[in-house]
């Protein structure tokens, strides 16, 4: 990704390919081009963030200011799934387990 002096960033199809891998989303090469173009348009708008002076401003992630909301560390039986419920929506199960794609030593 190329960045110019201020902040403007431009995405190439290769950059998109890398992000797609990180996000685990399959994209075709035609989509890579299209997405790169869309990202460039979007980032032009995002760049307005750099027109605002944020020196000495703390970031906010929780707007109503609640902190440390805890509960007792107790098992809530009403929130437990039976094995049957837990597996009910799975595409593939085997002996009461989810079947997952191979990720170690993947060919």
């Amino acid at each position, binding site marked *: 990704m190329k960045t110019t002096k201020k902040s403007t960033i431009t995405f190439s199809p290769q950059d998109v390919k890398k992000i797609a891998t990180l*996000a685990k989303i399959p994209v075709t090469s035609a989509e890579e081009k299209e997405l790169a173009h*869309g990202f460039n*348009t*979007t980032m032009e708008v995002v760049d307005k963030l750099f*027109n605002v002076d944020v020196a000495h401003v703390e*970031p906010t992630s*929780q707007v109503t200011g609640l902190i440390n909301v805890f509960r007792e560390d107790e098992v809530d039986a009403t929130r437990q799934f039976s094995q049957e419920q837990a597996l009910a929506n799975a595409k593939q199960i085997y002996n009461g387990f989810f*079947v997952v794609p191979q990720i170690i030593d993947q060919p």
Partner: protein
Amino acid sequence: MKLNTLTLTQAIEKLKKKEFSLSELYSDIQLAIEKQNKELNIYLKVDEDAVKKAHKKENEMLAGVPIAVKDNFLTVGLPTTAASKVLEGFMPPYESTVTKKLQDAGGVVIGKTNMDAWAHGSSTETSDFGPTKNPRNTEYLPGGSSGGSAAAVAADMCIAAIGSETAGSIRQPVAWCGVVGLKPTYGRVSRAGVVAMGSSLDCPGPIGKTVEDCAMLLNVIAGKDPYDATTLPQPILDFTKNFKKGVKGMRVGMCYIDHPQLVGTPVDHAVKEAGNVFERLGASVELVKLSDQIKLNTILTPDYAISLYTIVQRAEVSSNLARYDGIRYGNDRSNFGEEAKRRVMLGTFALSKGYANKYYLRAQQVRSLYIQNFKQLFERYDLLISSPSPGYALPLGASTNDPMFGELQDFLVEPSSLAGLPGISVPCFRDPSTNLYLGLNIMANYWQEEKMLAAAYAFEQSTQWNSWIKK
């Protein structure tokens, strides 16, 4: 009279007086659905057993009335897709807190409504199951993402509805469909069991035919939930108690009409007219001037909020949608539509090494500036009014291939949504040549939903724009 055209308040009252039976009410609702759903594409799923469920709730507060629910609320026994093929066929193993509260109070989920897939959009055109049309004029979009719920109310295919808003997803579609919708303070209503979009922003809320209906539904769904740690711990108010108090003595600020994009538009005119209405009702009204920096007694331009919202929302989307792996439930990630791909991937970038501080952290700092600005303004004003949308509903197809459609359509509500503030949109104009509506967005300080309900009710009662209130 067709019973499906009743408001929530009327339907409950008349059912309790036994003026008609639940079977008669459901028969009119089902007729409206059969007649219109094929063309309007509002319901993704209708519960065939709804009337049976309703009969068991006759004596409860909501008396068994049919409520339409956006398809991002988990409902046991009804498929939940969030209008995405990734979740096609998914049967939730648990119930969302909102729909549980609704059913405990005697409401029945009549069906699940169409939406932008994953709530990503402001048109309902990004649904993987086809767009919804605006019942007021079928050549136009209903808005979104709660477009199906707003349209269900507008088309009298339900008595009231539930939607959810991240930034505009209740208030923009209700404005475009000519109905009423309320976005509560962040944390007023539980997010548990709602398909997550932007966790620091998401708010479920009521969509209804009148302000009173929304107040009643808010009563039902609000409150502390052990399953959502961000819900407000204090006991909630009775929102149906004080909404008739009026606006006498209230200080009202008109916002954003001096934004270059709005000057001279129908929205500019409608907000000024609304200001006149409030003045006649005894409030003091003045323009809050727009500013491109934090300055006392001015409102910070929404232009930066577009940038800020794009980053915060897409970052949170990328994190929330990481769970869809197609293993435990749903289908694999190749099923994501174009808009979801765009948002997840840009969010992944904004949170990646070397860029998180530059974009995400900076966005959260700008977010603090908006909060600071609103805190100052609410020392001077009881209410701030604006338009929820820069204009009327746009024609079908308007959102296609626009990577920023949602963010740009919702720029007028993004600042207050990012601050977590509440707002309600009520119809404030109808163009007789198109039958399309404009909405008025009334915003209040944190936890002050009562004040904005009082203003919205006073406005609704003294104007001609609500199509269910005969004058």
